[in-house]
């Protein structure tokens, strides 16, 4: 909320700089977001002395003054009665600008040229009209720029008021808060004294007493609607409000001064002779002051005349009954509306106003009558006419039960050792009247402090007033229990560490994707996707059904930016619609393109990434899982469409399907411009992974006897998968075959068409003795015989 420092000072005698004040406010829990300095609202005004006064030749009420501005003598026409020779006065010279956008030019007044204007305080925006020019101190220096000497300036503080403190959404409210904190009294103001009320007010009926516990109405007659005086328009302009006319400006002034929203209806546009506060009937509509039509529903509270809604209660008035320059009779509303009712209406109609902002946070239920009287007083002064007695409707808001509080309880909550008298003084600064009974107090929160409900609230008030810094700092003394990780987090930490060790970098992607991005991944839009009801943009409509689309976008970005390789993984959630719910599951995915290591000058050390490398990353990540195996690829889940089915495998642990690893589908590669990069991908079901349990590691004795190694090159038809070759050898060679490594695959020269040569390294050994050559030879022969029998494989010639 914008606070004018000058205005604030009308309520409390502050002599702080705004910089100090904003520091203090921050300490109280109010952040000052900006301080704006407002200069004088006029220019080109100098101090001049009246040298001579003669009667205007053509007008009795006007005078012709010769004034000296220190440089030259000017002839100025003036209508004021309080002028005298020798006075020092503010002179607006030709070219001067005055508040309200008025600029002074050479003009002829009743046939006589006037070379400027002698100004009143009101014309300069420095005070209320008093019927004469502003006469300055005789010691004032002639010729000086008036703005420099007398130009009043202001500072506007943009104070962030938290939602729990609507009572501070006015100049009085903030002054009241400062008064409690600084121990300064509020400036006493005489109670409003409207002249003798005249006429009758329209009756006010409240059909919804819970929604509107208090309504104060007044009828104003004989009004003269016109521009506001400069002091009023100046105040509103200073805090960023546009002056409209005197009546509307008064309502806005009271809103910003006292925090009470008011509304004025043009009485001649109302019919039926009564005001009714009721919920709208189905089908009713209203054109609000913003010029838009609103369809009302039965949960929207309205202010109606005998016929139709004329205002959305607490939110905005209707255009039809709005005050215009032609208005002569008005109905002034000052009320308290139930906060949720106003908020509901404001949200439903998507219509917000300074009024709704305050009502939905909670206004002071005791303020309507006082604000109405204050407004009436000002209206009589500025708009003339007469004011009716107030029509009071509603039972008001019941006083809340007092809060039982003691210094001991406050200290218990805060962990402080405040003296009882200090805590009492704090509470008294908020509301003085409470009794001290046996060390406990029955604190009655003021009507405007709806936020004070419990002893915790009063503990906070005490802490704010005595400063959070005065509360000691200590550590909880409760016994420590061992801290635990969730299983998911424990597995996640290990998985991240492994993947980092393989040279992968971790990526974080947003949880939102577009149907378009999914289409690029060959993922068809599906009713099974979870979607946002209110996405920020078209690109962010679907909650991601897979991690890979995001990672592919990352890979494409890196490729586009010239990265020779990018190897990324992500651990995150994917979403799917389930009956009445959204299923979220953790997944682990990776995309790899480019060589695993940086470029190296010995090419053999830096192999190109391919599907075998990606598979290796996956297997090494999952290394140690019982029953880890590869199975033919079958698309599962949304991400299935991203894999090239001819170059991918499924990974399983026992019967648990963990996910897939393989080449990126060529169509997807093309869509992401990754064709040249030979990207490979994997996506694993992290929840399934976490559900698995690996056996604890146990020591196994290592053999003390040398191993025997044999390399065999066999030629076999390509249709036999390597796994079959390996299985045949393992079966035949027996338990003494400790390991079997494939060290070369060759096709081409010297190998018949349709066949390939596989070079295998067989390692034999026993724990209890060295194997004899003959035993090894026998095992090799058995293996070769088995290969021959099973798939016609021969030793390579």
């Amino acid at each position: 909320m914008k606070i004018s420092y000058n205005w604030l000072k009308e309520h409390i005698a502050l002599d702080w700089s705004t910089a100090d004040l904003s520091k203090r406010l921050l300490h109280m829990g109010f952040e000052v977001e900006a301080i704006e300095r407002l200069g004088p609202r006029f220019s080109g005004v100098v101090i001049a002395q009246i040298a001579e006064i003669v009667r205007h030749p053509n007008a009795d009420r006007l005078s012709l003054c010769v004034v000296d501005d220190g440089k030259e003598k000017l002839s100025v026409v003036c209508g004021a009665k309080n002028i005298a020779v020798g006075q020092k006065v503010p002179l607006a010279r030709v070219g001067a600008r005055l508040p309200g956008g008025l600029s002074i030019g050479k003009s002829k007044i009743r046939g006589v040229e006037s070379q400027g204007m002698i100004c009143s305080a009101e014309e300069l925006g420095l005070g209320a009209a008093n019927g004469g020019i502003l006469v300055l101190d005789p010691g004032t220096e002639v010729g000086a720029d008036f703005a420099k000497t007398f130009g009043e300036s202001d500072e506007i503080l943009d104070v962030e008021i938290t939602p729990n403190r609507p009572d501070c959404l006015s100049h009085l409210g903030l002054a009241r808060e400062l008064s409690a904190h600084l121990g300064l009294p509020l400036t006493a103001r005489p109670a409003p004294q409207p002249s003798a009320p005249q006429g009758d007010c329209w009756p006010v009926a409240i059909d919804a007493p819970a929604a509107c516990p208090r309504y104060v109405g007044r009828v104003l007659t004989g009004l003269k609607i016109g521009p506001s005086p400069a002091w009023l328009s100046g105040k509103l302009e200073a805090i960023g409000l546009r002056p409209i006319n005197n009546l509307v400006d008064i309502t806005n002034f009271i809103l910003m001064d006292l925090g009470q929203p008011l509304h004025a209806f043009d009485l001649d546009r109302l019919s039926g002779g009564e005001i009714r506060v009721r919920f709208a009937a189905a089908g009713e509509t209203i054109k609000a002051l913003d010029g838009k039509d609103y369809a009302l529903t039965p949960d929207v509270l309205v202010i109606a005349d005998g016929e139709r809604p004329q205002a959305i209660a607490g939110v905005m008035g209707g255009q039809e009954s709005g005050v215009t320059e032609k208005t002569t009779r008005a109905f002034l509303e000052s009320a308290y509306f139930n906060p949720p009712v106003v908020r509901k209406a404001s949200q439903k109609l998507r219509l917000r106003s300074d009024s709704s902002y305050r009502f939905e946070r909670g206004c002071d239920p005791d303020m309507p009558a006082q604000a109405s009287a204050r407004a009436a007083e000002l209206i009589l002064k500025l708009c003339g006419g007469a004011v009716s007695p107030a029509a009071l409707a509603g039972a008001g808001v019941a006083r809340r039960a007092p809060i039982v509080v003691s210094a001991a309880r406050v200290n218990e909550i805060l962990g402080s050792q405040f003296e009882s008298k200090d805590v009492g003084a704090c509470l008294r600064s908020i509301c003085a009247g409470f009794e001290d009974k046996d060390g406990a107090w029955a604190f009655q929160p003021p009507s405007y402090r709806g936020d004070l409900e419990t002893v915790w609230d009063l503990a906070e008030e005490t802490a704010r007033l005595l400063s959070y810094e005065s509360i000691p700092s200590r550590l909880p003394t409760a016994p420590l229990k061992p801290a635990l990780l969730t299983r998911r987090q424990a597995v996640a930490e290990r998985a991240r560490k492994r993947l980092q060790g393989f040279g992968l970098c971790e990526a974080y992607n947003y949880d939102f994707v577009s149907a378009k991005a999914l289409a690029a991944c060959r993922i068809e839009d599906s009713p099974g996707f979870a979607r946002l009801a209110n996405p920020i943009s078209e690109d962010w409509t679907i909650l991601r059904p897979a991690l890979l689309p995001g990672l592919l976008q990352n890979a494409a970005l890196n490729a586009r930016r010239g990265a020779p390789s990018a190897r990324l993984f992500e651990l995150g959630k994917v979403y799917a619609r389930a009956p009445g719910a959204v299923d979220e599951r953790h997944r682990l995915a990776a995309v790899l393109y480019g060589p695993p290591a940086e470029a190296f000058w010995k090419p053999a050390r830096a192999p190109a990434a391919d599907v075998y490398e990606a598979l290796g990353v996956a297997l090494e990540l999952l290394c140690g899982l019982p029953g880890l195996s590869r199975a033919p690829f079958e698309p599962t889940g949304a991400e299935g469409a991203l894999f090239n089915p001819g170059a991918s495998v499924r990974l399983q642990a026992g019967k648990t399907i963990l996910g897939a690893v393989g080449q990126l589908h060529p169509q997807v590669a093309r869509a992401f411009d990754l064709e040249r990069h030979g990207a490979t991908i994997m996506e694993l079901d992290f929840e399934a992974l976490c559900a698995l349990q690996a056996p604890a590691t146990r020591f196994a004795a290592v053999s003390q006897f040398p191993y025997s190694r044999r390399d065999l090159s066999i030629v076999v038809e390509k249709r036999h998968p390597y796994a079959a070759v390996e299985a045949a050898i393992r079966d035949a060679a027996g338990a003494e075959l400790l390991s079997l490594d494939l060290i070369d695959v060759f096709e081409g020269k010297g190998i018949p068409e349709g066949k390939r040569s596989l070079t295998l390294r067989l390692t034999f050994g026993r724990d209890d003795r060295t194997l004899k050559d003959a035993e090894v030879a026998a095992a090799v022969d058995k293996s070769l015989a088995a290969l021959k029998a099973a798939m016609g494989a021969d030793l390579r010639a």
Partner: protein
Amino acid sequence: MAREKAQWLEDFDALRAEIAAKPISALDRGSLEEFRVRILGRKGWLTELLKELKDFSIEERRELGPKAQDLKSRIDSEVSQRQKQLEAQADQAQTTASGLDLTLPAFRPPRGRLHPLTATIDEIAGIFLQMGFSWAEGPLVETDYHNFTALNIPEYHPARDLQDTFYVEGLPLLLRTQTSPVQIRTMESQRPPLRIICPGRVFRHEAVDATHSAVFHQVEGLCVDKGISFADLKGTISLFLQKLFGAKTRTLFRPTYFPFTEPSADVYVSCVFCEGKGCPVCKRTGWIELLGCGLVHPKVLRNVSCDPESWSGFAFGIGVERVAMLRLGVSDIRSFYENDVRFLRQFDENLV
């Protein structure tokens, strides 16, 4: 079949002649090994000659034996001498002029990186784990009740304006705007005393720019026990911030408003860049706003059937991106979600 004496002597002399013609001290590494195997090996020339001595008469053995032994020890010693000499020469060559250009780039084993946000979460969580806070998790798609109502933000409460929310289409669900619903879920399933942290993703319906992200991370903390006071909160948070930013870090607690805590505080740390002297990062105030915290609101405790007259607690929430940006000097929050490898590779855990 063993040789006759004449033949033996002829071969013996031939061997001597060979040695004389091609002195062992002149052999290179390869021919020395070849010589050693050919002459002294298991089936070597001299080995055979020595073996055959046993077939001769005693006189013959007396005559020939010492000659042969003499030759063998001479050769043995010369071979071993030459071997040592050659090894020394080779070592000399390898150690003085290896021919390697060691200014060539090395082969660097590939090493990945954890995301800077993971590293930041791990560091924050690590401090609290040491203080006995256990790790807790909750769903990202939440009910209105857990995200708002149970946290003392009823429907039509203006505090809902503080957190613009994403809603799920067709379901009464939303994306959690804070990690605080995990407080509720944890207290619904566990009774106090408890200490938890819940690091995780949160979502706000706001336009993304350099300092705002619709997706970001928080670490929530909750401690509920008998007699927990604001002083315990101050002590815990201050200790945490000193662990995170260094022992000299000072903290400042200022009042603020959160619907689910009472009293509530914004916590500032002395600026980590200027140590409180004032710099552009702290907007010349010397202080940086870092986290929000407070005592758990009695209504929140009641909502999980916990009596606020016998239990009390504190809660806090830290923005992970904010901490990471401050500590790493990242100026655009979007960089965390772009995944440019040149960005990601910068954040390496320091070895020392």
